[in-house]
């Protein structure tokens, strides 16, 4: 790679985050307010439900949308700071984007798509094509370089889009739902390859996704936003173990409740009491996996202290098991085997008893609001 395209900071700056941003975008009733820092070589996943502001954040970083307030500094250069009337246009930002549906130029071959960026960055046609050929080779697509985008499979198009974004050696790589357009099997393969290429990318990477698996596999750190605000941030292990909102709990597949703990007893806001394994005092979250919920036709005798009558509101297949949604004093999801379901003759509307062992719950302090 030639030096002229390399925009990574020199040695003294490495300790600072490569991307240092506070993205504030006002769009009528919606306000994105997202502090974000990413170090060199780090992959951060921006996770959130539809309409949370993920795309807005990505567009603001790419310069396709201006900030309303805050700042955006990349590799020591201010790219956007409304307070000082600084706004570097998209084409001058060292940012590469892999768009959700790739947006490969339909009239150009795969090679010319990848060569487009280097050519705009001052390489002559031959050098740009050489660089593009190298990248396609690295993606395992050397023999497809003459093909037009419509002749490529979804996985191939995704890799061409990645090569196109990386070919300009961006300081910040943005990926917008990079695997969403692929079918399940292709996604598995492509995800593994993407992981390899992201690990090799020396700049910062922001992955925007609503798929928790993509985020967990590909990212070093997760930033979860809802309604334009960060609701949780941290590494995969912390977030999967201790979700802090219903959305995050659903993402990682846990039942989550918030309440006030007194010793082992947690009083939920609706008056329901759960018995936990750990002792706490004050505001806490209680979480347990759906597999920890047992269903009984009659009130069970013996050990589990958390038992309550519930009604089945829905049943869906979930992997090899069935996920049963229960209504009652608390909403809860339970995973049971098809065999158990058959024995219980489960059907929507049926009344059952739910039981959770205290030892299967996890309790952790809730941040004060």
């Amino acid at each position, binding site marked *: 790679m030639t030096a002229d395209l390399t925009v990574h900071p020199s040695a003294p700056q490495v300790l600072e985050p490569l991307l240092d941003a506070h993205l504030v975008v006002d769009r009528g009733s919606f306000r994105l307010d997202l502090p974000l820092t990413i170090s060199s070589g780090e992959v951060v996943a921006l996770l959130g439900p539809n309409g949370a502001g993920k795309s807005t954040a990505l567009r603001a970083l790419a310069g396709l949308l201006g900030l309303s307030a805050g700042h955006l500094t990349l590799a020591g250069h201010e790219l956007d700071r409304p307070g000082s009337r600084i706004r570097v246009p*998209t084409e001058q930002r060292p940012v590469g984007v892999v768009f959700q549906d790739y947006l490969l*130029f339909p009239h150009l071959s795969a090679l010319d798509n990848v060569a487009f960026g280097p050519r705009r960055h001052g390489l002559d046609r031959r050098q740009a094509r050489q660089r593009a050929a190298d990248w396609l080779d690295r993606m395992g697509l050397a023999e497809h370089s003459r093909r037009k985008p419509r002749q490529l499979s979804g996985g191939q198009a995704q890799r061409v889009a990645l090569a196109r974004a990386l070919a300009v050696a961006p300081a910040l790589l943005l990926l917008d739902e990079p695997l969403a357009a692929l079918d399940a099997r292709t996604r598995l393969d492509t995800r593994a390859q993407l992981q390899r290429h992201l690990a090799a990318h020396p700049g910062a990477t922001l992955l925007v996704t609503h798929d928790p698996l993509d985020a967990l596999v590909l990212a070093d750190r997760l930033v979860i936003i809802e309604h334009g605000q960060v609701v949780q941030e941290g590494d995969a292990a912390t977030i999967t173990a201790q979700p802090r909102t219903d959305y995050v709990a659903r993402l990682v597949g846990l039942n989550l409740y918030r309440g006030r703990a007194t010793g082992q007893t947690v009083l939920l806001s609706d008056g329901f009491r759960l018995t936990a394994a750990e002792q706490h005092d004050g505001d806490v979250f209680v979480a347990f996996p759906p597999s920890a919920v047992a269903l009984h036709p009659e009130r069970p005798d013996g050990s589990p202290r958390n038992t309550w009558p519930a009604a089945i509101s829905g049943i869906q297949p979930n992997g090899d098991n069935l996920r049963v949604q229960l209504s009652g004093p608390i909403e809860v999801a339970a995973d049971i085997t098809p065999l158990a379901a058959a024995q219980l003759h489960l059907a929507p509307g049926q009344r059952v008893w739910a039981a959770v062992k205290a030892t299967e719950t996890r309790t952790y302090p809730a941040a004060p609001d």
Partner: protein
Amino acid sequence: MPRLDTTVARPRPAAPRQRPRRAGRIPLALLLPAVLGLLFLILPLAGLLARAPWATLPQRLTEPGVLTALRLSLLTATLATLLCLALGVPLAWLLARIEFPGRRIVRALVTVPLVLPPVVGGVALLLVFGRRGLLGSWLDSTFGVTLPFTTTGVVLAEAFVAMPFLVIAVEGALRGADSRYEEAAATLGANRWTTFTHVTLPLVAPGIAAGGVLCWARALGEFGATITFAGNFPGRTQTMPLAVYLALETDLEAAIVLSLVLLAVSVAILATLRDRWISAP
């Protein structure tokens, strides 16, 4: 006004092959006028073909007057189309991509020549580009250039009348094209001009081609503005439609032959555009 923007812009989803048909007779009150309308459109063309002097056609076609008029028509229509492309595509881009105050008014102004009687267009051109016109007198005194009653004047008159077709078609194509490709180009370091030439133009090339053909066809058939602004001088400003009109007064057969040539050109254009907007659902 033809809604070209919707027809030329995007590929139409294939019309369903089998529509559920309602049983029962077609009402006579609809069938009769429909057939009459069809005959009204077809009969004059059939008459043209029926009265054509087929036996003497080859030698008639090679008469110097015919060839001169045809050559002039093709030349001026092509030049007018090139002028329209050079000015109209950027204008269409401006209308489709840039938000500016009064854009709706500008768009309405662009379409005025579509609905304006061409003769009025010719008079207006005379008032501006005529020897004593607003711009014409300046052109005359400064550069010694006179436009009325010249071949250049024919090109101007044709371009004036035909450009709205091109602008509307290309603007429709631009609106139909996914502007996110342009955003992708920007993230790769392309400025607006490079994006326009390397991404936007190739994407809307089919729309521009269709608009260009329409524009050329309109220019080729232009009569009113041309005869008003450029006159009727054989070899200089006498295009095919003017030659037809003139021939009609002296030599009917010659008029028929010239008309046949124009008809053939029109049919060829129809064939070119067949897939684009003739096959409406």
